[in-house]
């Protein structure tokens, strides 16, 4: 026994090393399980504030484009609102009641505190959290297109999985063709993502619009993801090899909207009940 203790003491550095490495490995595996709420990431207050400071400095240099984007969006929204008002007046339809169906999605605006685009697994930190009604699993969009989904939340901040994350998959459809596929980033270029599982007979063309399908109830139906940049079909592949130019330039992301799906719980429980019956 004494010898054993002596042996362990002799090699204590080695054992500490092994112990710490195992712990790190466990942390890595644990972190890859999606949508947890945990404290040791940039959603904790100190980390978020430090990162927010550096984002503030960086943002100063792109204020002009941010302003342009926001003004542009304002114009679009104003036009849509005006058209809607005209329609209501012209046809004398009473305004739609606030039913559950037309209040399926609520939008919560948030500011980006930190963002990266060059890693394989990129995350975004924003300044809204649990107290603002954010929950893990919510979709995130911007004025230009889809951004990602919420991974973990603290009281005032949340961490989002960016579309530029090699494990993030979003159900998509090609707008003009109605074929379904999955958008998944390949890790290389932050301007493009890959669209997988589009069958051979689909014939996608360069310039076709790719939007979210709304199949997984995270994203609303029809949020713009990007435009097909390149589509190739190798000799024996069952699916097309499609490169999509992302609508949102992730390098200058500064405001996002988090989408709260009010019917998600109802839908999920219905699906699980149905699947339960089949079994």
């Amino acid at each position, binding site marked *: 026994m004494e010898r054993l203790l002596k042996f362990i003491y002799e090699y204590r550095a080695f054992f*500490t090393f092994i112990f*710490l*490495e195992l712990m790190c490995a466990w942390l890595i595996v644990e972190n890859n399980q999606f949508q947890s709420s945990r404290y040791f990431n940039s959603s904790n207050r100190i980390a978020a504030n430090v990162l927010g400071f550096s984002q503030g400095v960086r943002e100063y240099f792109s204020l002009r484009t941010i302003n342009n984007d926001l003004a542009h969006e304002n114009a679009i929204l104003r036009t849509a609102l005006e058209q809607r008002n005209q329609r209501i007046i012209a046809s004398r339809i009473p305004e739609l009641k606030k039913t559950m169906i037309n209040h399926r999605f609520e939008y919560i605006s948030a500011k980006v505190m930190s963002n*990266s685009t060059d890693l394989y697994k990129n995350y975004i930190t924003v300044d809204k959290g649990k107290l603002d009604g954010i929950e893990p699993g919510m979709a995130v969009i911007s004025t230009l297109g889809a951004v990602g989904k919420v991974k973990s939340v603290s009281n005032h901040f949340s961490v989002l999985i960016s579309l530029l994350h090699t494990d993030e998959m979003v159900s998509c459809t090609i707008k003009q063709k109605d074929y379904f596929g999955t958008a998944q980033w390949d890790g290389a270029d932050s301007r493009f993502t890959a669209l997988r599982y589009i069958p051979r007979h689909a014939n996608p063309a360069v310039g076709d619009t790719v939007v979210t399908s709304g199949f997984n109830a995270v994203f609303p139906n029809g949020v713009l993801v990007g435009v097909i940049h390149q589509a190739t079909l190798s000799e024996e592949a069952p699916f097309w090899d499609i490169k999509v130019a992302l609508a949102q330039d992730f390098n200058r992301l500064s405001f996002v909207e988090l989408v709260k799906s009010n019917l998600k719980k109802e839908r999920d429980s219905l699906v699980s009940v149905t699947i339960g019956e089949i079994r």
Partner: protein
Amino acid sequence: MIRSIIIHIVLFFVYVLVQVVLLKNLVLFDAAFCFLYVAYILLLPFELSSMRVIVIGFLMGFTIDIFYDSMGLHAFATVFMSYARNYWLAVITPQGGYDSGNTPTVSTNGTQWFLVYTIPLVFIHHVILFFLEASGFDMFWYTMMKIIGSLFFTLSVIVFLQFLVPQRRRI
């Protein structure tokens, strides 16, 4: 001794702040990263025991992980590098050994020795970090490009700082 410890604690936070505020935003050509925080581990005093270097390496990696949202990734790579550090120091001991109380810097052992000391350690840190992040060898050459790019970037900054910051012979 106490003074040295206090200086190192302050330096720890300086390295973390510089890394997450400045260098996190500084990526050259979408491929070359600067992980300057490894220099903190590399420049710890010679006589520090393996055990302590590993624990400090873990704390450093873990702190960086919090800001990069990459739980365990930087910690894993840094702990490995910290463990290798003291063995590598033993292998490349110059004639006459190290002076106790010194730190492994350019001014104590010369530029050539310093490069021999840092290149393999930084390289191994980057290899582990990037391949773990890519979770596999699917994109081998692209990852390799990132590793080599980051190695050059990180090393240049470390060596540049060695000449820029006036070196104390002893802390």
